């Protein structure tokens, strides 16, 4: 039983690492797409909308399976022999794609909620595009986006459990293996639930703290 405690500890690090890496990649991509959607031509906007619609309309599990098995097929075809894609990498790519799809819409909504006069005023003061985005839009946008953005992180931590299906030894996988070998599924899945619940609770508390620290401006 003690062996499983250390296994769970290691798995918790993998789960948290997977979520953090995917979350940061997804946030960066989501930000870029939201800004592109705000500034670019209609064809670009159409493409980005198509991306977010598809990503948000397809089950996370299917995206994970597609990237893992599809990636393996692609890598095997390139290498000319059977190559298996690393489950962590496949998980990061899949969860980043999912996160970026939702984050784009959250950020786009927040940018749209900032009065147009703000950017126009910044422009009339002679600020460059970079300065406008960094100094005027970003500080307001991020406060408006915070509640919805926080929910994305909670969903992300829960979605990491799906990566266990393609064999990543995360919390869910350790629980699955332990449940089978010790013939105690109830205890192992309850332990896994407790670990996930503590992860989502920590996330929730951090969001609440951030919301209190950075309330929406001018309300």
């Amino acid at each position, binding site marked *: 039983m003690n062996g499983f405690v250390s296994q769970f500890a290691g798995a918790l690090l993998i789960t948290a690492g997977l979520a953090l890496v995917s979350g940061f990649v997804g946030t960066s991509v989501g930000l870029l797409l939201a800004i592109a959607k705000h500034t670019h031509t209609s064809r670009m906007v159409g493409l980005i909308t198509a991306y977010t619609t*598809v990503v948000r309309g397809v*089950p*996370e599990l299917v995206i994970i399976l597609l990237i893992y098995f599809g990636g393996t097929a692609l890598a095997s075809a390139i290498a000319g022999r059977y190559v298996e894609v690393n489950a962590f990498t496949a998980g990061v790519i899949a969860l980043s794609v999912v996160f970026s799809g939702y984050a784009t819409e959250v950020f786009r909504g927040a940018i749209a909620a900032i009065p147009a006069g703000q950017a126009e005023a910044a422009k009339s003061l002679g600020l460059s595009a970079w300065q406008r985005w960094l100094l005027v839009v970003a500080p307001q946008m991020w406060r408006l986006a915070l509640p919805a953005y926080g929910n994305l992180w909670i969903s992300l931590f829960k979605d990491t459990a799906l990566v266990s299906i393609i064999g990543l030894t995360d919390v869910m996988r350790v629980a699955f293996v332990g449940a089978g070998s010790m013939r105690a599924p109830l205890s192992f899945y309850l332990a896994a639930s407790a670990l996930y*619940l503590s992860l989502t609770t920590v996330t929730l508390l951090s969001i609440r703290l951030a919301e209190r620290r950075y309330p929406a401006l001018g309300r």
Partner: protein
Amino acid sequence: MDLTMMVEAAVVLSSGLKLTLTLTALALAAGFILSVPLAFVRAFARPALSLSVLAYTYVFRGTPMLVQLFLVYYGLGQIEAVRTSIFWVVLRDPFWCALLTFSLNSAAHTTEILCRGLQSVPKGMTEAAAALGLKRFQTARLVTFPIAFRISLPAYGNEVVGMIKGSSLASTVTLLEVTGMARQMVSTTFAPYEIFIVAGAIYLLLTSIAVKITQVLELHLATDGKSSLRRRTRLKTALPGATTP
């Protein structure tokens, strides 16, 4: 990309569509029925009761549905009392385990959605209902709930989409719904691109239809000036037909 494989996949995966739709529809229905009383308790009851409902929704919304599913499917059998009880006939079956998990999960999400709707019903509405002599249950049925439902509709639409997507987890407990069919087909043909893309397209179609229905329903239930005008004109044209029965 192999087009004939994709056509073949579309035919094979469509046979899993019935199970996906059954699971989603039943889970949503059970979840909704369960969540209406819970939402009222969560919104208006004494703190002790409200907090116990919060504990339920918090745990179900804070843990992955996959863990919940495995807990029900593999975990409950570990309890001797469950194995000897009459429920074992049901809990042995992956379909009922999936349905139970999805329903409880959906109920937790829907409870919080409806609770937020109930809390944002203006106080004047219920006071007006009380002034008209409506009893508490009548007020809840005729005033509070319809208004709360209309407020909650966009969020509930997201929950419907989430449930359609979540039903794909049933494939992990051997059920052959769309994702289950896709995984089985990939393991025999090893054409992951074609098959999973077709599976994704099927889900995208389902979720798009759900989004569209929610939007239409939102428009239909809206109470701004435009739609009440439309309703009045419709009433006029329907009047001659109304005399026939």
